[in-house]
């Protein structure tokens, strides 16, 4: 039952072709239905693939030979294993809901057809990324999802901020891909192949140092794509794109590609503890770092963006701890509740006439009950409240870091990372409920906007409800009982994927769960006290350390450092080189030309244009030569 996987990417590709060719002129609104239907088809095919049964020993499916030159032979093909299927289910499922949502959300946009051209293209690229069975086609579609992200962030291209954000996203990703590409080429020269199965099978033939180098280079790619520190800067800006794009690309699917990649490359990362330490460390640091920024942001989508960065950091923490299953589990639950939160925020933004500042919101819950309750469920899931989806995955995730830390293989640093993760969870609960309170509770701060607000149309609310069901039930459904839920057993079929190190005693597991629940509860209570009861008031909290507040509000000045440091310096070098090109390189050329002309302008003075001068010279010459002949004969 595995001979039809090519159908899965084909559906969105066809939708892209049809909508791109005929959308703007003929199909117009119909593009939305075509796009949604195609993704539904892809989802159905994925489900069929899942039910049909995919095992770790399912052979790779080769599509065609990409290139064959000397010893460089690359095929484009699919790898079909449980990891792929889980990713595909998440990608196509969330994509379908977002497509349906977008029909309502984008209804009044003049470029409706363009939106439904790029969105299926993105889904196609994302599906292919997940299906790829070799490093090169992974890279190919890795970049292709990047360009779809570029096109969709810059969707409202007349806004300068949107265009800037789109370019920034692409460029930062390219920097990540720089490392990724080096890693791939190193793999080719050391393994002679780029197929996962060939490479993973012979990892042990190579030195640990080489594998560490390759792992770190590949990780740079993941850092770029999954917006980890220090390449996280593009993701918050990417919120300039339409909200469904933020939900799909910048929360649920594309940004998780880095997590998927590291999970897929597990045999390479596992070789050296240093690589895992770097992955976990970057993840833990980013989780805390981004959560702290999220506390001080006022734009609802930016809060969610930093939250995404932070959650991705937690997934990397789990990857570093060796708990691949848990990372993918959290990836899946996060896709649901974060897409829900984004779509919910989109519903709010839609109602508030594109206002994204939370300072203009307040008291919306009465006017948008569906949005409010689904958003609240998403927020609770994000905070990790029992028994919602986020609880199961986040709890296991932190537990995996804890057990890695106490294991006696010298990874004590993971204990630190665990504490950082716990802190991040605390901050997550605080900023999530800060956001909910500021948006839906209290008094309306902008009466004008508030009076025009209304619940969104059914095509937007229905996906919210479906996602909310996922956010509530998914974690327990696939993750219960902990460590032995459906998803664990399913992914366990991928060779080498195991549960986190030292899967502990039941008491330890339960106490860890209690700790993390307590942390989440504390966070929610804090947010309630500060933002709802105003005891102490937010202003008072900010006034405790204005510098710290400014630091958080300005996002630790990373953007400024990058702008003036890296971009400015590069442009400066460009200017200098341009001057060198014009003045020195071309100057030498012109100097040679000038020298020739200067010489000839001296010698040409012989040519007076006076015929008599010429004749005199001829006559004199004749006399002199005849005379010389006569005399010296």
């Amino acid at each position: 039952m595995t001979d039809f996987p090519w159908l899965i990417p084909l559906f969105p590709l066809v939708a892209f072709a049809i909508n791109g060719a005929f959308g703007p002129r003929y199909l117009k609104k119909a593009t939305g239905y075509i796009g949604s239907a195609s993704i539904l088809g892809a989802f159905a095919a994925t489900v069929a693939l899942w039910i049909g049964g995919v095992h770790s020993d399912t052979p790779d499916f080769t599509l065609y030979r990409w290139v064959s030159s000397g010893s460089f032979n690359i095929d484009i093909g699919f790898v079909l294993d449980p990891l792929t299927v889980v990713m595909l289910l998440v990608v196509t499922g969330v994509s379908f809901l977002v497509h349906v949502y977008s029909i309502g959300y984008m209804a009044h946009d003049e470029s409706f057809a363009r939106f439904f051209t790029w969105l299926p293209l993105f889904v196609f690229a994302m599906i292919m990324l997940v299906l790829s069975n070799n490093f090169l086609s992974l890279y190919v579609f890795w970049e292709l999802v990047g360009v779809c992200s570029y096109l969709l962030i810059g969707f409202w291209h007349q806004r300068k901020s949107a265009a800037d954000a789109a370019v920034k996203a692409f460029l930062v990703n390219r920097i990540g891909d720089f490392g990724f590409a080096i890693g791939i080429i190193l793999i080719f020269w050391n393994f002679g192949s780029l197929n996962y199965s060939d490479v993973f099978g012979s990892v042990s033939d190579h030195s640990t140092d080489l594998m560490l180098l390759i792992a770190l280079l590949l990780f740079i790619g993941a850092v770029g794509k999954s917006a980890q520190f220090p390449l996280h800067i593009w993701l918050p800006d990417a919120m300039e794109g339409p909200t469904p794009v933020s939900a799909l690309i910048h929360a649920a699917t594309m940004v998780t590609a880095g997590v998927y990649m590291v999970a897929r490359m597990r045999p390479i990362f596992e070789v050296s503890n240093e690589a895992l330490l770097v992955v976990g460390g970057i993840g833990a640091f980013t989780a805390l770092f981004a959560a702290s920024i999220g506390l001080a942001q006022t734009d609802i989508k930016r809060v969610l963006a930093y939250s995404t960065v932070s959650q991705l950091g937690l997934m990397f923490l789990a990857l570093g701890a060796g708990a691949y299953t848990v990372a993918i589990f959290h990836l899946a639950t996060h896709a649901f509740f974060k897409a829900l939160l984004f779509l919910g925020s989109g519903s709010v933004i839609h109602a508030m006439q594109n206002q994204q500042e939370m300072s203009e919101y307040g008291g919306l819950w009465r006017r948008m009950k569906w949005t409010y309750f689904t958003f609240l469920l998403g927020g609770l899931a994000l905070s990790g409240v029992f028994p919602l989806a986020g609880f199961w995955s986040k709890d296991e995730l932190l537990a995996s870091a804890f057990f890695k830390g106490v294991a006696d293989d010298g990874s004590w640093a993971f204990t630190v990372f665990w504490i950082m993760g716990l802190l991040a969870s605390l901050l997550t609960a605080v900023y999530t409920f800060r956001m909910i309170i500021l948006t839906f509770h209290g008094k309306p701060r902008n009466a004008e906007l508030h009076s025009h607000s209304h619940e969104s149309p059914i095509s937007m609310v229905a996906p919210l409800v479906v996602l909310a069901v996922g956010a509530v039930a998914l974690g327990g459904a696939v993750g219960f009982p902990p460590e032995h839920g459906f998803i664990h057993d399913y992914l366990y079929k991928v060779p080498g994927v195991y549960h986190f190190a030292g899967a502990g005693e039941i008491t330890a597991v339960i106490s860890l769960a209690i700790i993390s629940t307590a942390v989440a509860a504390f966070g929610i209570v804090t947010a309630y006290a500060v933002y709802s009861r105003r005891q102490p008031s937010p202003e008072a909290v900010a006034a405790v350390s204005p510098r710290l507040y400014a630091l958080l509000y300005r996002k630790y000045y990373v953007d400024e450092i990058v702008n003036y440091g890296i971009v400015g310096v590069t442009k400066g070098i460009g200017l200098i080189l341009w001057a060198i090109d014009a003045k020195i390189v071309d100057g030498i050329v012109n100097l040679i030309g000038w020298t020739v002309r200067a010489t000839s302008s001296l010698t040409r003075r012989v040519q007076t244009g006076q015929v008599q001068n010429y004749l005199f010279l001829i006559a004199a010459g004749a006399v002199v030569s005849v005379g010389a002949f006569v005399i010296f004969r």
Partner: protein
Amino acid sequence: MAELSIIIWAPLVGAVLVLLTRSRSSATAVAMVASLVTLAATVAVIAGFDRDAFGFQLVEAHDWLPAIGVQYKVGIDGISVLMVLLTALLTPIVIATSWLTINKRVKEYMAAMLVLETGMLGVFLALDLVLFYVFWELVLIPMYLIIGVWGGPNRVYATVKFFLFTFIGSVLMLVAILAIYFNTQTFDVQVLPDRALAESLQGWVFVAFFLAFAIKVPMFPFHTWLPDAHVEAPTGGSVILAGVLLKMGGYGFIRYVLPLTPNAVDDARIWMMALSVIAIIYGALVAMMQRDLKKLIAYSSVSHMGFVTLGIFSQEQVGVDGAIIQMFSHGLVTGALFLCVGIIYERTHTRMFSDLGGMARTMPVYAVVLAFFSLASLGLPMLSGFAGEFMVLVAAFGWQYWSGVLALTGVVLAAAYMLWMYQRVMLGQVKNVAFLRLPDMNRIEVMALAPVAALVVYVGVSPGTFVDFITNSTARIPFIY
């Protein structure tokens, strides 16, 4: 067995006929027919091309100057086949779009274009060094006229610079050709690789060939004629210049320098790699700061052609294959980009970023087309630019990690300058109210670019199809490791 002669001479016959016409439209029509005949013959040749063969195909030889063994000898192999296709494809496109843009001396312009096509095809198909040299120089004259007569305000400076630069190189090449003849007693390209050049001579021959080809490519630091020539040339001239003329340099390296002077190549390799890497980064950084669309694309050509020379001198088969794919791709993409610049210049009469902006709103179809080719140029996978660059990078890493790593920064910078260019020209608010009512691309422009776009996608999705043409021919190049 005269397919190749038809390909070469059909445009020249067309040029004569064009000069006999009386009106602008009939001149264009005749030129179009002549170039389409060439294209049809090329497609027929490619359809019959044997991809499994190792040597030259469709070889045709006649005595020309028997006293010194000069022949009229033409033939095609994997190294030249894509270049011939590129030439035969771009010329009708240029003729079609010139119909819209050239208003003075149309007849002469079309004739020059066709003579140029004959010259370029001859360069790629000649199998005799003297014949090669004749075609090489033949290319120079019509290009000189196209820039000098139909060019921009500073055209005389640009065209003289172009002429002198390339002429200096080619004169030295003539000396090298004679030296080869006196050393091996033959001009025959098929025979030459078997008659090894004396090692003492290889160095000198290499230097002479290197100057000729490096100027044409152009490699750093011989590139300064290129931005000037591009800025002043009419659109069609720029397309052919970037699309085909630069490839003559890369083709010359692969066809003549690699097989004839292997020892000298091995000695000079580190310098060649260094110059290539410099060209890649330097071209990209300078391109990033340009304010004129054409200059930006000109400097980006320097950067992209750096990948070509990097691949050629990597001494890896995958590098040479990649270099040819990169040349083919660069010809398509940069040719198309210059057409795009021409389209916007025809409408706005400016190429400066400071005057443009927000054109995406005015010209939505054009916005998609320019985005497509910009992305292809910055090496987006699944479009043609990526395949060649990646193969070259693989080859560069195989020799020295540093060259590959440095070349990769060029890929990052390419994204920067292309996207910033696109942003400044197409995105944001419209700067000039007069631009709000500009017409979008017309049917001729769309039809001219459509086949290029189709090939760009084809190369990107399945570069293997094209590499299969090449790889048996490059396998015969003697590499010294």
